């Protein structure tokens, strides 16, 4: 198990957003976290990437605790987080946004290589490399955001609602590329999604979160099959 | 603080009592202190105008000295050219300052914190040069503003400074009382709403721009009153009497008092006047080179200001209330 979380509790002021959550993701697997609004999905992710402070519990990555480690340092431990919404810096060009991802590595050559890798994965970004990122379409921005995360040579990728506000066609592309990446780069991925169906389809593991508590953990396929889950989250 | 509502009438008595106390105490004081007292009152009025602006409508002004100046000059001009009774001149001073405030407010309403701060600062730097453009404004040496000697019934040889102090105190009480009632009125609530949350206020149908402009106008008017008081205590108006330092002092005093309640307004005013005294006594005790003694007041007041912003950002009074409420809450458990 590369990612191990047990009894994690996170508060927003008085509200308990994540309550005694425990989960484990094996290396190289793609876990989808689904659940309705306010289920605490985003908070869980932000806590894992060091943006939110946990109240109690433990988080281990590769056998080492990452409790209270600052976000900027988690990147150095191979954890990349693509936060909710199009997480790019609008004022910067596509290229600059991508280089941003590799900035902590302080190595121009490697950065250049990763840049080529990413542009080969997302040719669209290659075409728009010199444009300011606020001129990109929603889908392109999401690619850019993911691309930036990849530039950091991550082992664990935390994706927050990559499908948010995208057209169905684009969503499919994004999900596809996520799946490909997971395999090609042997990434461990934690994918938070409203679009439960889409997410579970590409996921190995499914985790259902409700009101901050884990209500179901199973492999994705059987979750899709589960009538309760269907009714509650897949909408048929 | 809106929980305990007190009608204008009963609050009126509160202010009257405050006035009587001040009157009583002041009878023991020599001219130095009563003159400083008058200055304190001037600051109280000036600071309350900033508190209204910042604490209740979320705007800022680093150039309020300009409005004090406008008020003072307006009063002096009416006094000198039409020889109207002082009280009329005061009213005119306030009105003219308010109008000036409305004009600036029109643009201020569209500016956010730092922009507004800078523009008002630029105003305070730019405005004084006007006095040399028009003969009637008397240039750098300014104009006399003679409110005349104390009324006869106060007795022969009654110190004019004591008289200034009484007038200033009266002006202070009236303006604070008026301001307090205004803040408890519909307008006051609107302002707080705007300060609290533009969007929400907008949704609840508040015309933000209008309420901002109104706040700025009233604030400038009150500042104008302070300006007239200052002119009275100086017996004259001149650009030098309303320097940039004055604008900064007002902002400082407002923060020392706590910008979100009028309750502490006295604290800032007294501090501003007391600091040089304190500095004096300190340097007397410690001796210290001239370079130190001359710069001590500036250092003290700036240091105090910074400490306040750092550790009691909402001002002593608010702080006390907060801590008291905390205690209550604990007791409640």
């Amino acid at each position, binding site marked *: 198990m590369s990612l191990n979380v047990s009894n994690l509790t996170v508060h927003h002021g008085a509200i308990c957003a994540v309550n005694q959550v425990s989960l484990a993701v094996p290396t190289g697997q793609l876990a989808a976290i689904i659940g309705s609004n306010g289920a605490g999905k985003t908070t869980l992710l932000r806590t894992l990437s060091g943006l939110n402070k946990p109240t109690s519990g433990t988080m281990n990555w590769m056998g080492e605790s990452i409790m209270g480690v600052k976000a900027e340092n988690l990147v150095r431990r191979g954890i*990349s987080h693509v936060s909710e919404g199009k997480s790019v810096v609008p004022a910067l060009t596509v290229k600059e946004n991508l280089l*941003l991802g590799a*900035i902590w590595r302080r190595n121009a050559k490697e950065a250049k290589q990763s840049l080529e890798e990413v542009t080969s994965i997302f040719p669209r970004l290659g075409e728009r490399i010199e444009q300011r990122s606020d001129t990109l379409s929603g889908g392109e921005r999401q690619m850019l955001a993911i691309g930036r995360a990849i530039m950091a040579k991550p082992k664990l990728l935390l994706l927050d609602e990559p499908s948010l506000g995208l057209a169905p066609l684009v969503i499919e592309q994004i999900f596809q590329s996520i799946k490909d990446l997971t395999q090609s780069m042997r990434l461990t991925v934690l994918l938070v999604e409203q679009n439960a169906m889409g997410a579970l389809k590409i996921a190995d593991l499914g985790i259902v979160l409700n009101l901050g508590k884990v209500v179901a953990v199973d492999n994705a396929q059987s979750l899709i099959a589960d009538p309760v889950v269907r009714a509650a989250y897949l909408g048929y | 603080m809106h929980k305990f509502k007190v009608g204008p009438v009963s609050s009126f008595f509160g202010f009257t009592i405050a006035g009587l106390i001040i009157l009583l105490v002041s009878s023991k004081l020599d001219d130095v202190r009563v003159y400083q007292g008058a200055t304190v009152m001037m600051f109280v009025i000036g600071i309350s105008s900033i508190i209204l602006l910042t604490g209740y409508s979320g705007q800022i002004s680093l150039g309020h000295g300009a409005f004090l100046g406008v008020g003072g000059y307006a009063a002096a001009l009416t006094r000198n050219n039409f020889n109207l009774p002082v009280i009329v001149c005061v009213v005119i001073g306030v009105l003219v300052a308010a109008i000036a405030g409305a004009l600036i407010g029109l643009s201020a309403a569209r500016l956010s914190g730092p922009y507004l701060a800078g523009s008002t600062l*630029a*105003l305070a730097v*730019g405005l004084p040069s006007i006095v040399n453009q028009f003969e009637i404004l008397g240039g750098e040496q300014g104009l006399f503003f003679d409110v005349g000697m104390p009324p006869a019934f106060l007795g022969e040889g009654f110190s004019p400074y004591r008289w200034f102090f009484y007038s200033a105190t009266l002006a202070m009480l009236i303006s604070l009382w008026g301001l307090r009632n205004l803040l408890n009125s519909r307008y006051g609530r609107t302002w707080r709403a705007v300060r609290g949350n533009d969007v929400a206020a907008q949704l609840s149908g508040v015309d933000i721009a209008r309420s901002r402009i109104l706040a700025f106008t009233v604030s400038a008017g009150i500042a104008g009153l302070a300006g007239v008081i200052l002119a009275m205590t100086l017996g004259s108006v001149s650009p030098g009497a309303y320097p940039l330092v004055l604008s900064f002092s007002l902002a400082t005093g407002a*923060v020392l008092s706590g910008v979100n309640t009028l309750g502490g307004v006295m604290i800032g005013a007294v501090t501003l006047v007391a600091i040089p005294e304190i500095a004096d006594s300190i340097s007397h005790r410690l001796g210290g080179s001239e370079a130190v003694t001359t710069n001590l007041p500036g250092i003290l007041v700036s240091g105090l200001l910074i400490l306040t912003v750092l550790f009691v950002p909402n001002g002593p009074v608010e702080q006390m209330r907060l801590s008291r409420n905390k205690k209550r809450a604990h007791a409640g458990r």
Partner: protein
Amino acid sequence: MINLLNTFLNGITSGAIYSLMAISMVLVWRSTRVVNFAQAGMALLSCYFGYEAVQRTGSFWIGLFIAMLAGALVAAIIEFGFMRILLKHSSQGPIASVGPIIATLGLLGLIKGVIGVVWGNADVLIEPPFSVVGFTIGENTLTFSPLKLLTLITVAVLLLSMTWLFQKTNLGLALRASAHEPEISRLAGIKVDLVRTLGWALAGAAGAAAGMLQAITGSGGMNPNSIEFMLLLVFGFIAAVIGGLDSMAGALVGGMILGLVLAFTLTYVGGSLVFLTAFILLLVVLLVRPQGVIGQKAGRRA
């Protein structure tokens, strides 16, 4: 004709200094979203260090260097030891909108006081390193002198090196990213707090440079309450606002516009209106183009 040329050259020379000051305010604004009204005070303090260096070495260049170094240090210390705490403490309540601004005023007062204690209240002077005698065209002598040329060159060099720093280096990338999206920058592994301090340091250096140039081109000496430095602050701010307060390119343009507008009003309208002109220019820009003359998009470009 010669008047026109003179006016123009005057405009850009003083404009260049305003630009430098404006840039230092922009840098602070971008890194902490605070307009630092102590900027000129910090510049003044740095210039006193520069002055000491000039006194000891006799070289203006060493003085300039020391001043910029001191400026960077002072700014870094203030950001680290003061601004961080400040922004934590006064981040909510009505104070939030004014606290930082007022605090920088306090800072200004404190700095003045310290200068007064250490160097006294009298004027100190830095000798211009170059001749102030204007160049001549035919029998006409220009107001434009080697000293002013030097001023322009210095500003140009500083601006170019800053542009290089911001556009071509990782530090620059980090500075620009954290200015706009601190959280994303953290996720990219940037130590945003450190970068913020560096931003202030750069601002301090730029301000110090502006101050040194003001000190040698201005008419008076330096003293704790130097009016020339107070004006430098006001004009620097106005220039920054004209440029949109968020853009270094904008700050440059803003400074030049301000410098030229002042120069031309002075020559062709009247000498008594300089401050009002500046104020009116500011208001007009704020009301007509609040996002600054070079526009929102460009204005945001780092």
